[in-house]
């Protein structure tokens, strides 16, 4: 292990990575070939095996962000590792919400004939996406690591409060205007045993992928912080030497 190429992997993450890869192959085989077509939707129902696990992972990611943020704020030992896990988890959560929105709108186009409906669930998901983009923007504001950690931890907890409020208000907003009949027809699919199994396989695979990505990403963030801190030390040292020369 040389100083120039510190890997973020360990034996454990490599094992996890290979297991995830094997499961992904299995999921592709079952999702694309083995599982049956839907009576109504045909092969388009296969989008479900990516769409549902993606939003599941996003929820897990944002819950994890909130939990580790709470741990950071409450703990006596305010380790920045909590903050980096929160950041890594939120980044990956945003990625998976995006995947979920894209696959969802493609699926919507095929089954409902439109990319987007102003359904409560879709609208809240869009807000979820924007809220955590804002969270990531706040993480990039600069300042010391402690400032970043505290600011973003408070914001992560505020988001946990805000998301249900937005969801609730969007639900009653929609319920007064129109029944979300269109949105329901896509999700009320009768799942047969093999389809349900494939869906669970997808959820397990995506969750393992998420864990693997968070482990790597938080180590990457730790290295990035170390580089930033080192750069600052070097700069201070240079100024000191300049002062001594004079």
């Amino acid at each position: 292990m040389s100083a120039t190429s510190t890997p973020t992997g360990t034996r454990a993450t490599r094992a996890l990575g290979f297991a995830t890869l094997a499961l992904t192959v299995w999921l592709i085989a079952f999702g694309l070939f083995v599982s049956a077509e839907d009576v109504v939707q045909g092969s388009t129902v296969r989008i479900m095996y990516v769409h549902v696990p993606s939003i599941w992972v996003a929820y897990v990611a944002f819950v994890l962000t909130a939990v580790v943020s709470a741990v950071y704020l409450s703990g006596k030992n305010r380790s920045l590792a909590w903050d980096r896990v929160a950041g890594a988890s939120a980044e990956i959560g945003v990625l998976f919400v995006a995947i979920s929105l894209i696959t969802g709108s493609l699926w919507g186009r095929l089954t409902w004939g439109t990319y987007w409906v102003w359904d409560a669930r879709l609208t809240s998901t869009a807000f979820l996406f924007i809220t955590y983009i804002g969270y990531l923007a706040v993480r990039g504001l600069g300042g010391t690591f402690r400032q970043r950690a505290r600011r973003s931890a408070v914001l992560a907890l505020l988001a946990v409060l805000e998301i249900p409020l937005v969801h609730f208000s969007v639900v009653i907003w929609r319920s007064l205007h129109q029944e979300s009949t269109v949105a329901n027809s896509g999700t009320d699919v009768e799942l047969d045993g093999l389809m349900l199994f494939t869906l669970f396989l997808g959820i397990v695979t995506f969750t393992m992928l998420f864990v693997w990505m968070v482990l790597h990403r938080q180590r990457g963030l730790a290295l990035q912080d170390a580089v930033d801190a080192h750069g600052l030390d070097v700069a201070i040292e240079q100024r000191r030497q300049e002062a001594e020369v004079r």
Partner: protein
Amino acid sequence: MSATSTSMKRLVSVARIVMLKDLRAEINSRVLVNQVAPFSVVIMILFAFALDNDGILQRVAPGLVWLATMFSMLVVVQRSFAVETADGALDSLRVAGVDTRALFLGKSLALGVQLCALDIILVATAFFLYNVQLEPSGLLVVFVTVVLACFGLGFIGTLYGGLAAGARGRETLLPLLLLPVVAPVLIGATRATEAGFMSGGAEVSEGWPWSGLLLVFAVIFGVVGSVAFGPLIDE
């Protein structure tokens, strides 16, 4: 018991001082009257150009009033924290031992008062330019809605304004953080005002549940904000 009531009294009196300070700064600078209010009226006029139909304007007037409020709020919140971060005034307040809860409440209330004043202008603009109906009972709903929504927005605006204050690129960050959070207020206030204006055949009485919702939002963000504001601005 007496210790808590004394500290409560102290909190309220400090919050009042902070609020009056902000309002006095506003009265002296007249930014709200000379810049923000004209800006919001221009938005209302631009909406009329964009929609270009009297019937549609009358129908969507409540939503336009509240959209104009949201956009103007961004400017007012920036302003509210620009006066604090200039010359390190916020740090001075913290060093002077001002309770952050009092600071939060004071600044929120000042913001709420300014937004109320702005919304009275916007409702009047809608009345004259968009030709909306306004009965006395409808006026009462609209008035209560304006007060509740503006103080709710004041709390939310102060909370997120404090977060973005002093950061590089805060002008662009604030809308991104603030607008998703105020979406529930936009929904509630628009529906309540719709009832008040009787747009699209709505009954005036339909507005009250929405006003109740706005009250709930204002209370939630008032309580949460006074707890979260301290850690947010603590450098």
